[in-house]
């Protein structure tokens, strides 16, 4: 599997490269203590961790909303497809990295779903039939074409989540980052979302503590706690390590045995830390 939307980056460069990321909020609370992460083209990675581990803070660094680029206290390097994140490259990095935030109501702010999906590409200068085609394609990917002219607050939470995904897919990102995508989804909505995500060729980073969802979707998992990467490996092996999960306030749902699912298909297994 090679990333379909990717390829504009330097050849051979990882989709996402994070080195020694350190960050403290203005009140002095340090959240990240040197995070390293390398995600290859087309890889699907789950970023696991308990509440307060720094997952969302980390995510906001990938698009330069937080961190030294945004004028905050921090250090480290972020590169997307070989392009280092700096003030100058901010706009291009934000186009390459699509973030789906936790609350779809924050992402759907225009009168109709179609307007919202068109927002990103229109900001990047697309207009007319080209824009319309892009919007239709993104809506088709998430199966929401017929809801295009609906008002966002009349959609179900599953539909809203997929609409939020479409707003990002319309920008044709190389790396797709999702923050807690399964929170407040019912089982059917969860399955529909995972089907959509599984069909995408894009590099995927899923921030979650929904462990079965991570197991189903992502062959590789990275465990973040107290601002550091504490484990990195095949999701199945990581989730089977009961002592590791326990040490970092993660728990499998009752009755779930990660070893009962087949080993990750297609993707290579453990990776040495960068």
């Amino acid at each position, binding site marked *: 599997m090679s990333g379909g939307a990717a390829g504009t980056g330097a050849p051979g460069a990882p989709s996402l490269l994070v080195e020694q990321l350190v960050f403290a909020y203005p009140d002095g609370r340090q959240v990240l203590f040197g995070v390293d992460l390398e995600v290859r083209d087309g890889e699907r990675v789950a970023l696991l961790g308990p509440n307060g581990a720094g997952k969302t803070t980390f995510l*906001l660094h990938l*698009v330069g*909303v937080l961190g030294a680029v945004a004028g905050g206290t921090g250090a480290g390097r972020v590169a997307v497809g070989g392009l280092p994140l700096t003030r100058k490259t901010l*706009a291009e990095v*934000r*186009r390459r990295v699509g*973030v789906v*935030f936790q*609350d779809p*109501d*924050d*992402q*759907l*702010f*225009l*009168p*109709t779903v*179609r*307007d919202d999906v*068109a*927002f*990103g590409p*229109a*900001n*990047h200068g697309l207009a007319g039939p080209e824009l*319309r085609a892009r919007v239709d394609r993104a809506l088709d990917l998430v199966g929401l074409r017929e809801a295009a002219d*609906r*008002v*966002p*607050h*009349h959609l179900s939470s599953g539909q809203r989540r997929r609409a939020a995904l479409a*707003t*990002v897919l319309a*920008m044709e990102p190389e790396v797709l980052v999702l923050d807690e995508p399964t929170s407040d989804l019912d089982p059917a909505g969860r399955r529909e979302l995972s089907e959509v995500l599984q069909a995408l060729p894009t590099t995927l980073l899923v921030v979650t503590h929904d462990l079965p969802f991570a197991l189903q979707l992502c062959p590789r998992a990275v465990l973040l706690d107290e601002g550091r990467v504490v484990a990195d490996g095949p999701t199945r092996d990581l989730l089977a390590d009961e002592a590791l999960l326990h040490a970092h306030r993660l728990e499998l749902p009752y009755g779930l045995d990660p070893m009962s699912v087949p080993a990750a298909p297609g993707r290579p297994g453990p990776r040495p830390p960068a």
Partner: protein
Amino acid sequence: MPVPADRRAAPPPPARPGSLAARPRSLAARPGSLTARPAPRALARPSVRREGLLLPTGSPVHRLPPQTKLAALPAFAACVVAVPAGSWWALATCGVLLLAVVVASRLPVAAVARRMLVEAPVVVFALLLPVVATGPRVDVLGLELSRAGLLGGATLLVKATLGVLAAVVLAATTSSRDLLAGLERLHVPRTMVAILSFAVRYSAVLVQETRRLQVALAVRGGGRPRLRHLRAVAGGVGALFVRGYERGERVQRSMVVRGWTGALPALESSPASALQWAAAGSLPALALVVALTARAAA
């Protein structure tokens, strides 16, 4: 697949004596309790997916581009206001013209009538006018009323009714999104349209959050807000403000990430043809003729 035995036992047991289900009235009958309230409106008309105030009937009025209707409404209202007081035939003609539009839009009469209730405060004011106004008095059913007040009140009532009816027709034939796109077409500043657009989108979210806060308050404080609950209500308003503010920050963040640099892209909309402008303009144009004739006669 057969259902396991422990799952099959899950459905609620039949009402036992003493259980809540067996004595439904004890809770419902207490005044002020949540259950004693009249059924909320949302329950009375379920599953209707209304987008704002729009009542879709697919009539020619609905199909007119929003910018033409948006321009026609204030123009018509201005013509009605220009009719001199006491010129009843002119006001009646304007009313007939407007009723023709209502008929053409095929809106349900009951729904339109219900929405006309927003006029109630104006009606009260118009009814008070003959009592409080000064000048020569006339005797009506044993009440001494001001002649000028009667004339002014009645004129005010009729003009306000026409204006409100026209606004109701506009709101019922145009979706909120189209209204925004129409305002943009009419060259209303983009920032104003954006503010309105956010207001439309997030008023629904805020209403939901308010309901949740109200429920949380009712569960702990018991019943509707009363005077002694004012503190809690004020706290709720504060919490709502903070939530709204935080949401604003998150929305802004999600806009920035998608390449927003300070200008919202225009909402997609189509221009209106000359024929459509003429169709929408016919109502204010006829009203203008009526108003001018009435002024000339007065």
